[in-house]
């Protein structure tokens, strides 16, 4: 298990470098832009994957957390605080060094929150909201949980659409670049930005986030908490009999996945320079569920590959006007024919070919399914 984990991470790193070199060779570096975005969406999707696959909780509202992250960071770093300069709160923030002066498109002076502070605030808010709604929501099961999370996503969407502070139907644009690490000595600063010259850096940055996020989740799955989570999905009753506080663990994973989503939202918003209400729509949430399902609920690597791969294709416009329909179709087909993800399908068929008489693999599969059906 441990060895496979390290191998996978090294493989992923090599792949990322390989893609960069390939695009540099062939002069197709414009791919890097969509790959960068896909990596951030991938970060959200693996977080959701742990929630769905390992904690066994569906969430059809994760676009809501993405939007909370993105919108809060965007609003804080673009809204001018100069007119409120005398208010005690603004003064306090200024004294703490959390505000920065800048210039808007037309040369007007601005006073906005530093991206770092905005980012941290947005992630904390996402965590807090996840905590508050998670306590009651996670007591629900099955259809109730699905509807409750769907409802949460829709509320966020409606609030964004109806609030002038968040730009209503237009969303927020003109979000500044996010200087993650300032210039130190001869090293250039690390900046999250869609600027042309920073494309390669941002490509590596996005995959850096994704890889670190992946390592953390893999660590978690292998740890005591991870075993508790997996046991909870396997049999809630037996997990409780072993002294595992199932509600507490579900909640923690819910909050963790919300933080992943919010981080993805913050980064992508600074990268794109803006965010619109469609990012919070139900369709987006469903799409994330689809990506987790295609990758295979309990197969984090599959989720990562499918999450980044399919999002990249979608961003490239491969599916054209049928984009949403394609994801709907994927959802249905995967759930009908390969509920464990399409990667599991191939491995199984390979195994069947290698051991035509069924190496005890089939009954295992059946048991797995029968164990799954009554509970969840």
């Amino acid at each position, binding site marked *: 298990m441990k060895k496979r984990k390290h191998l996978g991470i090294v493989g992923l790193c090599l792949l990322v470098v390989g893609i960069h070199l390939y695009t540099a060779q062939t002069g197709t570096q414009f791919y890097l832009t969509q790959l960068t975005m896909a990596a951030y969406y991938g970060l959200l999707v693996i977080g959701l994957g742990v929630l769905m696959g390992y904690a066994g909780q569906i969430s059809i509202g994760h676009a809501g957390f993405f939007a909370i992250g993105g919108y809060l960071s965007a609003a804080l770093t673009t809204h001018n605080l100069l007119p409120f300069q005398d208010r005690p709160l603004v003064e306090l923030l200024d004294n703490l060094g959390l505000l920065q002066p800048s210039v808007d498109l037309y040369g007007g002076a601005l006073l906005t929150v530093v991206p770092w502070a905005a980012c941290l605030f947005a992630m904390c808010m996402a965590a807090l909201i996840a905590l508050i709604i998670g306590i009651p929501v996670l007591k629900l099961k099955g259809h109730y949980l699905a509807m409750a999370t769907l409802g949460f996503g829709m509320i966020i969407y409606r609030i964004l659409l109806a609030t002038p502070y968040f730009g209503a139907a237009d969303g927020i644009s003109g979000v500044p670049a996010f200087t993650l690490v300032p210039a130190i000595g001869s090293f250039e600063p690390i900046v999250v930005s869609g600027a042309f010259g920073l494309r390669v850096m941002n490509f590596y940055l996005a995959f850096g986030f994704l890889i670190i996020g992946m390592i*953390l*989740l893999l*660590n*978690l799955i*292998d*740890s*005591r*908490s*991870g*075993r*508790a989570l*997996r*046991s909870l*999905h*396997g*049999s809630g*009753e*037996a*997990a*409780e*009999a*072993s*002294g*595992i*506080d*199932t509600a507490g*663990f579900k909640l*923690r994973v819910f909050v*963790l996945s919300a933080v992943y989503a919010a981080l993805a939202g913050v980064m992508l918003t600074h990268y794109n320079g803006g965010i619109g209400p469609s990012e919070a729509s139900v369709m987006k949430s469903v799409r994330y569920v689809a990506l987790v399902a295609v990758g295979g609920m*309990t197969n984090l690597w599959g989720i990562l590959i499918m999450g980044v791969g399919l999002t990249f294709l979608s961003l490239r416009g491969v599916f054209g006007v049928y984009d949403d329909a394609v994801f709907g179709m994927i959802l249905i087909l995967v759930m009908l024919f390969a509920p464990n993800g399409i990667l599991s399908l191939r491995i199984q068929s390979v195994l069947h070919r290698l051991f035509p008489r069924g190496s*005890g693999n089939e*009954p*295992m599969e059946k*048991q*797995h399914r029968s*164990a*799954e059906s009554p509970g969840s």
Partner: protein
Amino acid sequence: MLELKSVNKKFGGLHAVNDVSFRVEPGCIKAVIGPNGAGKTTLFNLITGNLPVTSGTISFEGQEIQNTKPHQAAALGMARTFQNVKLFHGMTALECVMVGRHLRSRAGFISGLFNLPWTWKEERAIRAASMELLDMLQIAEFAGVEATSLSFGQQRAVEMARALALEPRLLLLDEPAAGLNIYETAEIARLIRRIRDMGITVVLVEHDMSLVMDISDEVVVLSFGRKLAEDSPLNIQQNEEVIKIYLGEDDAFAQ
């Protein structure tokens, strides 16, 4: 050790457990028997907190536990197995047992996330203790196999190991011999005695009379939710009422 005082459980109109009281002394093996539907498993679920009691008190080592949640009951030192073995699919036998060590280890969510160095030692300890238990139950060779793909008897053993990994003071076994053949049953009997000798009090629900009469120190008989008798195995076998409910009112002798 464990004491039930006029415990009642109603499901709507059904009085599943009706005014049941008994005590379990430390270090003994107590069996709960009764015909199907007598409320045995319900009683177990009440003790472990899987179901809330309608009225009455249950105390464990002097502490009232009728309102605790299952995981809190486990934290008090109470482990259980299930009638139709509940293992964690997708996990190996060893991992299943390691889950049982949950309460005897303390690496938290965050330190798990970052794989902090101090958790490594604990992980090794968990692994070693779990292997030891698999060894004791003679299933060490299946440690790396997915637990749900093992034979039924082996799955029972894994479940037992998972329960023991908790280092409980009280072990509740729900039909430990169901679905086992005669040799495996004998094996289970030996094992339960050995568990008792380790200082763990055992309460079991069982249908297999030979096993019950063989190993238990005391027997409680339930019928339609009521306690019918409580005595030593020998006296229970002589108890006419018990014979009646097991063999039927009229044809007790015809059969």
